[in-house]
C-alpha cells in the first residue's frame, strides 16, 4: 500500500527530482519517475516538483493533467487495465470492461473501497494480434474472456 504523504515521501520525491537536471525538458520524466515510486502525484509531491523546476504548482498540474498517464489519487493494490483499442474493441473488450466493472463493483477509473483493485482503460498495448488483452499488475494477458478475467482477479485477490 502506498503511504500517505509524509516527510518521508517528500524526501523521496526530492531524491527523484535530483536525479534529473532542473531543465524544463526533464519535467515529464520526473513526473513519471515520481509516479513510479509513489504510485500517484500527491499535492505535496507536485509542490516539491514545482519548486525544483522553478515552476508554479499550477504550471505542473497544467502539464500533468494533459497526459492520461498521471494519477492524483492512490492506486489500488492491484491495477487492472483493460485495452479498449480498435482490435480489442472488435474482439469484445467492451464485454470485458463491463464484466470487470460488475465483478469489482466499480466503474473504470475508480478503486475498490477496500483499496484492493483499481480499474483503468487503455488504448492499445500492442498485443492486438491476441485481442482482447488486459494488463494486471504490469503483466499482459491475452485472449481474455469474462470468465478468464474473473479467474485472474480471483487469483490476484488470494
Amino acid at each position, binding site marked *: 500500500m502506498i503511504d500517505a504523504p509524509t516527510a518521508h515521501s517528500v524526501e523521496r520525491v526530492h531524491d527523484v527530482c535530483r536525479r534529473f537536471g532542473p531543465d524544463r525538458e526533464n519535467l515529464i520524466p520526473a513526473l513519471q519517475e515520481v509516479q513510479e515510486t509513489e504510485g500517484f502525484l500527491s499535492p505535496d509531491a507536485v509542490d516539491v516538483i514545482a519548486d525544483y523546476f522553478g515552476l508554479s504548482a499550477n504550471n505542473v498540474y497544467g502539464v500533468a493533467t494533459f497526459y492520461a498517464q498521471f494519477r492524483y489519487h492512490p492506486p489500488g493494490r492491484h491495477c487492472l487495465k483493460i485495452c479498449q483499442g480498435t482490435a480489442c474493441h472488435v474482439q469484445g473488450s467492451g464485454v470485458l470492461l463491463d464484466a470487470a466493472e460488475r465483478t469489482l463493483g466499480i466503474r473504470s477509473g475508480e478503486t475498490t473501497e477496500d483499496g484492493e483493485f483499481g480499474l483503468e482503460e487503455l488504448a*492499445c498495448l500492442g498485443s492486438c494480434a491476441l485481442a482482447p488483452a488486459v494488463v494486471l499488475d504490469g503483466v499482459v494477458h491475452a485472449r481474455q474472456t469474462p470468465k478468464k478475467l474473473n479467474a485472474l482477479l480471483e487469483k490476484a485477490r488470494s
Partner: protein
Amino acid sequence: MNLFTIREKARAAWAAFALPGQPRVLVGAATCGRAAGALEVKEALKKALGEHGLAESVPVFEVGCNGLCYAEPLVEVTGRDGRRVLYRNVDARIATRLVETHLVKGEPFMKRALCVVEGNPMEGLPKWAELPMIRPQERIVTRNLGFIDPDELLHYVNRGGYTGLERSLALGPEGTIEEVTRSGLRGRGGAGFPTGLKWGFARKTEAAPKYVICNADEGDPGAFMDRSVLEGDPHAMLEGLLIAGYAIGASVGYIYIRSEYPLAVTRLAQAIEDLRAYGLVGEDILGSGFSFEIKIKKGAGAFVCGEETALMASIEGHRGMPRAKPPFPAVSGLFAKPTNINNVETLAAVSAILEKGADWYAGFGTEKSRGTKTFSLAGQIQRTGLIEVPMGIPLRTIIDDIGGGVEKGKACKAVQTGGPSGGCIPGKLLDLPVDYEHLAEAGSIMGSGGMVVMDEDTCMVKVARYFLSFTESESCGKCTPCRMGTQHLLRLLDTILAGEAPPGTLEQLRGICETMKCSSLCGLGQTAPNPVLTTLRYFEDEYSHYLAGEVRRYRIEAEACEGCRACAIACPTGAITGDRKQPHIIDQDACILCGVCLQSCRFNAVSFVFEEKAAR
C-alpha cells in the same frame, strides 16, 4: 573500435548462436508472445532440458516477433540434424513434449509443427517461405525479426547491420540524401512525405545544433508494427537514426516512445548502451568526425503527441499541443532548432536501403509507392500477425491468403486502415491495390499500418462511433473545429444509434465533417471525420435503418445453439437464460441491445434483424 573488429566479434557471436549442427531452442518472447505465456514456456523448456541432462548442450534464446502472432507462443527447435522446426501454440505441457520428442528422440513433434524454417525438408511440413502467411510477403523492415537475439548488437551486425552506416559515411551527407531520395521511400508514419526531400530541407537550414527524432509513439490503437520492430530488432531503427542524423548534420537524436511499450524501452536502452560500447554513438563515430548522442523520451499517454509539433512540445516538457505550420520542423523544430522527424519503420527501411542500395529498394512496390509496408493484421481474421508486403499488393491477398480469411467462416464486411484518422474499406473493394494513392481514393489512408478486419455482423455506425469516442477524448482542445466537432459528431452518432435521430441528421453529420476537415489545426481534427465519412459512403443503408427508427434486435437460433452459456455469462443485464447444453433465449424486455451475445457466440447461433424500436 572499427567495423572490421566488430565484424570479427560478430562472426564469433553468431557461431555461438547458430553453430551448424548445434541444437538450440528459440522462444518468441515479444510483448504479445509473453502475453500468451512465452516466459512460462521458456521456463518449462529449461526445466525439461535440465531433466534430460541437456541444460548445457541446448541453449534457449529469446527472440522477437516473427509475425505469426496468431500461433503464439511460438518455439523454434533445432535438432542435431540441423533442421529448424517452428512450433505453434506451445504451452508448458507441449514444451516438455518438444524436448522429449524433438531433442531427445530426434523426431519433430508433428502435432504442433508449423513449418521447417531451415534445413532438410520434411514430409508433410511446409517450408517457412511456403507458408500461406509468408509467401506473399517481402521482409525488409522486418528482416531480422524472430531470427536474432534483439539484445545482441553483434547478431545484427552479422546479418549485415551497420554496413548501411558505413556506406552512408562514405557517400557523405549529400550522397546519402541522394540515395534515400532515389529509393523513393516515403514516410511510413502516415502522411507519406518523401523522406529524402524532407532530409534535404533539414540539411539546408544552417543552425546548430540540429536534431533528429524517431517517432515511436504508435498511437493508432490496433497497430503494433513499431513495437514489434523495436522489440525484435532495435538496431534496424537505430542505424537508420544514425544515418538520418549524419545526413542532416544533427548531433542529437531523440526517440519518443509510448510508455505502454515497456519492453521496447528496455530493449532500446540496452541497444544504445551497446552502441556506445562499440563506439557507434558518441564522439567521432568510426573515425568519420561525426558525433552523435541518442536519448529516449517516454510518452505519457496522449494520442495527439504522435503529431510532430505536439511531440516536440512534449519533449520540451510542455502540454503536447500541436502548433500551426509553417515554420516546419526542418526550419524550426525541437527547441526552435532545425529538426527532422521520422517514423520507426521509415528509419528501419533507411538502414536497409543504405545497406543494399536505392535501386534494390525501388524495385519493390509501385511507381509512386516504392518499397514495402508493414501492417499489423488484427481483428476478426483467422491469422492475426505482423506482416510486410510490397506496396500495391491487392487487399484481398492480405485478407484471404496471408490472413486466411475472416474468423468463424464469416464474410468480410470492412477493413479498417489508418486507425482513427483512416477509414473503412468495404469488403466489395477487396481487390484494391494497397498503396498511398488507392487507399486515399477509397476515402481511407495508408496510415501507419493498423489493419483491423471486421466481419459481416459488425455494426458500421458503432464502428464510426467508436473512433469518434476515441478522437473526442484525445482532441487536445486547442482549436474549435476539432474540439467541438468531435463532440457534436459523437452526440449525433449516439442519437442515430438510439434510433432517435431527427430528419436532416445525416446532412448535419456531413456538414460538421467538412468543417473539421478544412479548418482544424492539425491532422487529428482534419482526419477525425474519416471513419464517419467512409462508413456513410459505403454503408449508408445501415445509417438508414437507425434513421427510420429501427434498431438491431438479437435472436438465438435454437437449432444452432449449443447451450454453452457464453452469451448468458457475457450479457450485462442477465437477459439470456437457458440450461447448459439446451437452447438459450433472450428476454427482449431485459435486452439493452448491446450486441454482446453476438460477439460472444462461437457457434454463429446469435443473429439480428432491424426492427422498429417501439415494436417489442
